[in-house]
């Protein structure tokens, strides 16, 4: 096994274990542990992005996800400072169990299907500068200019909406 493959398995194991711990007890019981584990998982994930030659996206992942979104999460969790009672009970119903089992079964089936179905896709060679800022900016401003501008509007609406929702009185 080559160096890249060993690196891939280490990063994949890290991202899966930390993400599972966000949902399972350490993170599921206390959201603050969950948020910190999720930050660790985002770092592993950006390592996987680097293995996919998506260098710019790896940097953006850490800047925006770990740097901005998760800081917002930890800020709100620490602001609320929830007690056991305020977190509420985790009820165990049959419907929930069925849902989780169905999700796991679907994931196993999908994993088996993609293993056989994607082997025939011929990989195209990567163009020069693949994954760099130049290539992303080129595609973004030539092919996706209107969606890009709409994203700006979306973020503005989200900021105004968050202020309105979080205000004590309107």
């Amino acid at each position, binding site marked *: 096994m080559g160096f890249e493959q060993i690196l891939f398995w280490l990063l994949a194991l890290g991202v899966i274990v930390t993400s599972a711990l966000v949902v399972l007890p350490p993170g599921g019981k206390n959201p603050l542990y969950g948020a910190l584990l999720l930050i660790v998982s985002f770092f592993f994930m950006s390592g996987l992005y680097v293995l996919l030659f998506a260098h710019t996206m790896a940097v953006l992942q850490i800047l925006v*996800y770990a740097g901005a979104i998760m800081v917002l999460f930890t800020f709100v969790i620490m602001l609320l400072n929830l007690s056991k009672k305020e977190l509420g009970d985790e009820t165990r119903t049959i419907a929930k169990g069925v849902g989780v089992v169905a999700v796991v079964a679907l994931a196993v089936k999908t*994993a088996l299907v993609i293993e056989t179905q994607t082997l025939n896709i011929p*990989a195209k*060679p990567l163009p020069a500068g693949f994954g760099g800022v130049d290539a992303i900016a080129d595609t973004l401003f030539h*092919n996706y200019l209107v969606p890009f501008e709409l994203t700006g509007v979306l973020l503005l609406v989200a900021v105004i909406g968050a202020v309105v929702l979080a205000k*004590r009185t309107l």
Partner: protein
Amino acid sequence: MNPVSDVAARAAEAAAPVAHSIPLYWFLVVAVVLFAIGSAGVLARRNALTVLMSVEIMLNAVNLAFLAFAREWGNMHGHVVTFFVIAVAAAEAAIGLALVLGLFRHKKSVNLDELTALRN
């Protein structure tokens, strides 16, 4: 060299598949596992903050699949979609956390099972 044959040679080179050291489906399997973890969290957890974080895990899994296919097809469109997903995730986190704050102020709890105001 004859320019026509040069173009033909370059086209043949561009069409020839390349072998990546890490196959596409390894990344897709990781993405599927992460998506399953995220959706199991959304279904099973009743704490609004953990549910929001599970949604972030699902968005990350989809990003990974987009980037894996972008490498496989050798074009940048997957990266741009990932960029949009990250922007939408930021907006979603801001709105979602504002809703959690409002919910806590009203109910003194962030348990989603207690959100029954519209029932009956």
